[in-house]
């Protein structure tokens, strides 16, 4: 290997800092800002130092820097556990590492460490975009390695070579990907890969749904088998929140599994591709008839996966849009009426007045909805803060809020009036992707509603938001608010005539991403087993799978070896020696026109023999022979001579008799 100029302590080329920046890139959205500044600052310094010829900082200074960085991470997080702190530490150390780089080995080690930063990006987010990111990062890293080992090589040839290596690596990668045994669970406990959780938690406090609605990120995609149901029935049920503590609603572990509804109509079957949200809940249309494999169906009809969802997963569900769950169980009635001992006296008085009026439970639901409809309530994503008696504030003074406020207040009123009620959070609606015909459900579609039990038919859905902002239910959240914060920069107003094209491009991209997930990324333990079984391979035990891996790789190896040999054989003969080949062609033509060349005769001897027989062709033959000899034996052979030789031989070949 070639060592760099020892007088220049740093590599002048921006290869490695750029690779580190690529590895860091996707993390910038959640990393503490100072770490980004730290890394970019130090890498910038290294580049500057390379060009100005600064001395590298001493070992002591580097250690102090690394210690300071780690201390900074500790202060920022208050601990050094978990994926977020781990990635931060790695980033901080990789910020310092280039300062000590003086030889190739150190640079290579830095490069290998950068792969771990790339990997942590992949744990955070999956999908087509991330796949392309992965390919780009690997391509660039290979080009950097190639240039480390060949300092004279410019960027484009290095990238070409790296690209060729990648292409050659694809078949083996594919074989390993298909055959390498997947496990149903993890090996051992490692830090949760989540560094940035988006979605619903166990507790929904005021403002939580509002925060979700700000985000344009996709929660999941749903593909229907057959025609999709009408938009206003797309209630994607998530968590059921039972406990109210005067401020927040909380989920409770429910005793026993869920029972099938006693009546079910409007059945739809569909597949959900859920983005990782690092929690176990699964989402399905209200109401799913059973859990997908690897998940359970709780007593409140919430779908809960056995493990936290850290990767994109796909599951198929059947839902009945119209259903009756039947009479409530004892615990359901008890939980559905639970309230804090005190607080929100005015709301309790309002409910008491309905009871005093002797209304039926259904009448009380109607009374509450009428209250929302008739009083000046507004649907807004930017409500004012509420005091300690939040429900009272909302119902009687502020009267501005979004689904979560309406659902919370409504459920409180119902429980106060003695009607069992519970809050359900999930998503409502979604964007129909015209290219592909599936629904994209975003965090922005997050919604909260209420289920009440007014008679023996059981729980039924009531959406108080519909009383205030029917367009939210009928046409989606964008129709209900003025400004859609999750759109970010990409609004119709800003983009103008470009907007439809942009929308179309986004839809196509999304569809491609779903296709990629469906065909490649969703390759799980179960799918691997069924796929290999269809290929006629045994998958019973890990030993079987390992055997498949070995046999598969052996087959691939033999195939590649055979192909390589075939290509080599085909290439070898004509490519061996173009100059010699030209001369042989001349000799073949000459044998047609005059004496043939004996196998061992030298070119000069053959020339004189040929010239004696065909003095008319002698000058041309001499020219060819001289050029050949010059190319072959003299150090003065020029590339132009090669062209000349082939031109002369062509001319010679055209001579008839």
């Amino acid at each position, binding site marked *: 290997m070639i060592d760099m100029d020892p007088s220049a302590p740093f590599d002048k080329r921006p290869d490695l800092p750029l690779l580190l920046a690529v590895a860091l890139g996707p993390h910038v959205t959640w990393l503490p800002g100072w770490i980004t500044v730290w890394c970019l600052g130090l890498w910038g310094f290294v580049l500057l130092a390379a060009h100005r010829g600064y001395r590298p900082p001493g070992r002591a200074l580097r250690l102090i820097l690394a210690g300071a960085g780690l201390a900074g991470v500790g202060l920022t997080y208050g601990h050094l556990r978990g994926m977020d702190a781990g990635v931060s530490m790695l980033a901080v150390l990789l910020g310092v590492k280039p300062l000590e780089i003086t030889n190739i*080995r150190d640079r290579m080690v830095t490069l290998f*460490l950068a792969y771990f930063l790339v990997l942590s990006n992949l744990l955070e987010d*999956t999908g087509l975009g991330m796949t392309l990111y992965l390919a780009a990062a690997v391509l660039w890293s290979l080009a950097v390695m190639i240039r480390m080992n060949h300092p004279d090589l410019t960027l484009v040839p290095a990238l070409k070579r790296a690209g060729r*290596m990648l292409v050659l690596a694809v078949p083996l990668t594919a074989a390993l990907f298909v055959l390498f045994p997947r496990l149903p669970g993890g090996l051992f406990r490692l830090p949760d890969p989540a560094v940035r959780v988006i979605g619903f938690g166990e507790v929904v406090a005021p403002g939580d749904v509002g925060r979700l609605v700000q985000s344009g990120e996709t929660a999941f995609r749903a593909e229907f088998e057959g025609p999709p149901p009408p938009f206003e029935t797309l209630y994607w049920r998530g968590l059921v929140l039972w406990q109210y503590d005067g401020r927040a609603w909380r989920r409770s572990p429910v005793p026993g599994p869920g029972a099938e509804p006693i009546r079910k109509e409007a059945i739809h079957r569909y597949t959900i591709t859920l983005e990782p949200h690092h929690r176990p809940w699964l989402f399905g249309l209200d109401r799913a008839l059973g859990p997908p494999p690897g998940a359970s169906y709780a007593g409140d009809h919430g779908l809960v996966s056995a493990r936290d969802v850290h990767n994109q997963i796909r599951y198929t569900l059947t839902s009945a849009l119209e259903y009756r769950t039947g009479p409530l169980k004892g615990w359901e009635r008890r939980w559905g009426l639970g309230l804090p001992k005190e607080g929100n006296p005015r709301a309790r008085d309002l409910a008491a007045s309905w009871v005093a009026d002797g209304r039926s439970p259904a009448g009380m639901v109607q009374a509450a909805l009428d209250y929302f409809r008739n009083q000046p309530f507004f649907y807004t994503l930017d409500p004012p803060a509420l005091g300690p008696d939040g429900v009272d504030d909302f119902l009687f003074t502020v009267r501005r809020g979004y689904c979560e406020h309406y659902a919370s207040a409504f459920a409180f009123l119902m429980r106060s009036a003695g009607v069992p009620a519970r809050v359900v959070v999930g998503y409502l609606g979604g964007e129909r992707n015209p290219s592909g015909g599936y629904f994209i459900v975003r965090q922005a579609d997050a919604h909260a509603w209420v289920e009440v039990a007014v008679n023996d038919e059981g729980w039924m859905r009531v959406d108080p938001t519909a009383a205030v902002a029917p367009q939210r239910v009928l046409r989606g959240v964008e129709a209900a608010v003025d400004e859609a914060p999750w759109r970010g920069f990409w609004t119709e107003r800003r983009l103008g005539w470009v907007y439809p094209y942009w929308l179309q491009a986004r839809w196509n991209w999304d569809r491609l991403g779903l296709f990629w997930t469906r065909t*490649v990324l969703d390759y799980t333990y179960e799918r691997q087993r069924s796929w290999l079984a269809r290929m006629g391979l045994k998958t019973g035990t890990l030993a079987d799978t390992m055997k498949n891996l070995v046999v598969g790789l052996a087959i691939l190896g033999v195939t590649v070896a055979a192909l390589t040999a075939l290509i080599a054989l085909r290439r070898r003969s004509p490519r*061996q020696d173009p100059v010699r080949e030209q001369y042989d062609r001349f000799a073949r033509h000459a044998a047609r026109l005059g004496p043939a060349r004996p196998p061992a005769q030298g070119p000069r001897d053959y020339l004189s023999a040929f010239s004696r027989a065909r003095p008319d062709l002698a000058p041309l033959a001499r020219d060819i022979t001289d050029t050949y000899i010059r190319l072959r034996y003299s150090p003065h052979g020029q590339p132009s001579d090669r062209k000349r030789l082939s031109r002369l031989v062509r001319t010679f070949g055209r001579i008839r008799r």
Partner: protein
Amino acid sequence: MTSRPSFGSFFLRRLPAWLDRRSGRPRVYILPTRPGWLFMLSLAGLLVGAVNYNNNLAFMLTFLLGSVLFVALHQTHGQLAGLSAGPVRAEPVFAGETAWFELALDLGGKERPVVTFRIEGGGETIVNLAPDDRNPVRLPLPATRRGVLRPSAVEFSSTFPLGLFRAWTRIPLAAEGLVYPHPVPGPGLPSAAFSGQGQGASGGRGVDDFKGIRGYIPGDSPKRIAWKASSRGGRMFTKEFEGQAGISPELDFHQVEGTDAEYKLSRLTYLLLQAWASGGSFGLKLPGRVIEPGQGRAHRDRCLEALARFGE
């Protein structure tokens, strides 16, 4: 990097470089470099992460890098596979100079960047070989002592493209590089050593009349170099004085003062070069070998070779 792969190479490099029985070509050995081992260690770490988080993109990254490692193994091996060495020749040099062995290569029509050549006992030479390169590779070997350099082998190695593997091969050489004795200036030989007569008295160096300039020969005193003339072109010239030229000496080993044979050979070399440069005819008389007086470069080289091979 000059370090060798540590693991196992110790034994392999000591194996004789026998030729592959079927292809007749030298065998190419390959082992991971230290960064190569570290790369594999990193891959193991990535794989653990992928398995544990059951993340298919992480699997993809790991397998892609693993496959790239395999491709690199193949390509690094291919850097040397099919590379064969043709004839080797070296221009004679004087002791103390560097001998350049010119190695003609058959590249098999393939581009082979960053190949390191190391001739036994010499330093490393790194060459980018383009497919239509016809120029031989020039490998330096310090010629410290008079005699014949016979490097037994040349080692080719390469870590290209990724530096994760090092492939190497040893090709046995049958090349000879003549090392003439280092010319040592001094007075001419006593008159008896000359076949000419009458000029012996002025045979010593010194303050004779300026006669002209001639080409520089190794061993000429710096004081005598014609700097003005030398500065005009690439060649060096030496001033010549009356009394040095025009002699036709029979250079006799036994006539040279001193007892050390090597010293005597060095002195003879200087005198021989001087005699040749002045254009006269000269002969050489060594124990067991006599070269009749003659003229010209070929004659000079024959004499120098006899000096180089003396005692062989």
